[in-house]
């Protein structure tokens, strides 16, 4: 989010506060994976966004299964439902911009092709971050970091889209991701 907003130099302290205490390097691997070079067309970004929403949904459904407390289960179920709605909005926005008139099925084929180029399964993703799935704090922290990335993505997409209606769609999704982050933050505070 910082890099995308003009901050000149951003360092990710790997392992965060845990590493600070333990004085060893633990936690996420290098996250310097460059997905956007900044020259993508809005269509490309929307394709990636669709895939991201699928990933988020997949992640929330996995977490819903694993969560022990009903409050946490309910939140993840709600979040995964909303991501489904986001996917539909992104598909509609894509068709408005591209004039390709793709059916949802064909659009998904296109998304899948792109996502396979450098994708991670939820399992692989969890393997990299190694959250303690028994720890609600870890799971919610991870969900928050994913939502923050999604929010960052949409804010950057929004600035590239000229069609006002499509821009509104993306801004609405961005605001909802922001609200997701706030819900997760509240949940974290309640633990």
């Amino acid at each position, binding site marked *: *989010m*910082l*890099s*995308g*907003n*003009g*901050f*000149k*130099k*951003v*360092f*990710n*302290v*790997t*392992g*965060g*506060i845990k*590493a*600070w*205490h*333990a004085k*060893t*390097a633990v936690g996420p691997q*290098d*996250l*310097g*994976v*460059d*997905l956007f070079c900044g020259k993508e067309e809005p269509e490309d970004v929307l394709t*990636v966004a669709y*895939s*991201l929403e*699928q*990933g988020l949904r*997949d992640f929330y459904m996995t977490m819903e299964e694993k969560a022990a407390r009903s409050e946490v289960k309910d939140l993840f179920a709600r979040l995964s439902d909303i991501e489904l709605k986001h996917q539909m909005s992104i598909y509609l926005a894509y068709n408005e911009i591209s004039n390709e008139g793709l059916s949802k099925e064909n659009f998904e084929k296109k998304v*899948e092709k*792109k*996502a*396979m180029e*450098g*994708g*991670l*399964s*939820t399992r692989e*993703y969890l393997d990299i971050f190694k959250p303690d799935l028994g720890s609600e704090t870890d799971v919610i922290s991870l969900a*928050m*970091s994913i*939502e*923050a*990335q*999604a929010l*960052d*993505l949409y*804010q950057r997409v929004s600035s590239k889209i000229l069609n006002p209606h499509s821009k509104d769609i993306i801004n609405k999704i961005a605001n909802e991701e*922001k609200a997701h*982050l706030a819900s*997760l*933050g509240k949940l*974290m*505070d309640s633990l």
Partner: protein
Amino acid sequence: MKWMQFFTPAESLDFKETQSYISQHPGDEMTILDVRQPSEYQESHIPGATLIPLPKLADRLNELDPEKPVLVY
């Protein structure tokens, strides 16, 4: 289902590198940013860290100086 690796590129510093970076730069020439929740910050944080919880970050970016290096955790 596969999903994209969508992280914004940011250089990573491990504990030793972070400690060395902080000791070599005056405190007012960098921002140590803690994006966790207030309760976690209260429990422990890197000395001098500014707290802006992740849910608020997008709305509060203007509180930070984009010219200064930011160490975020």
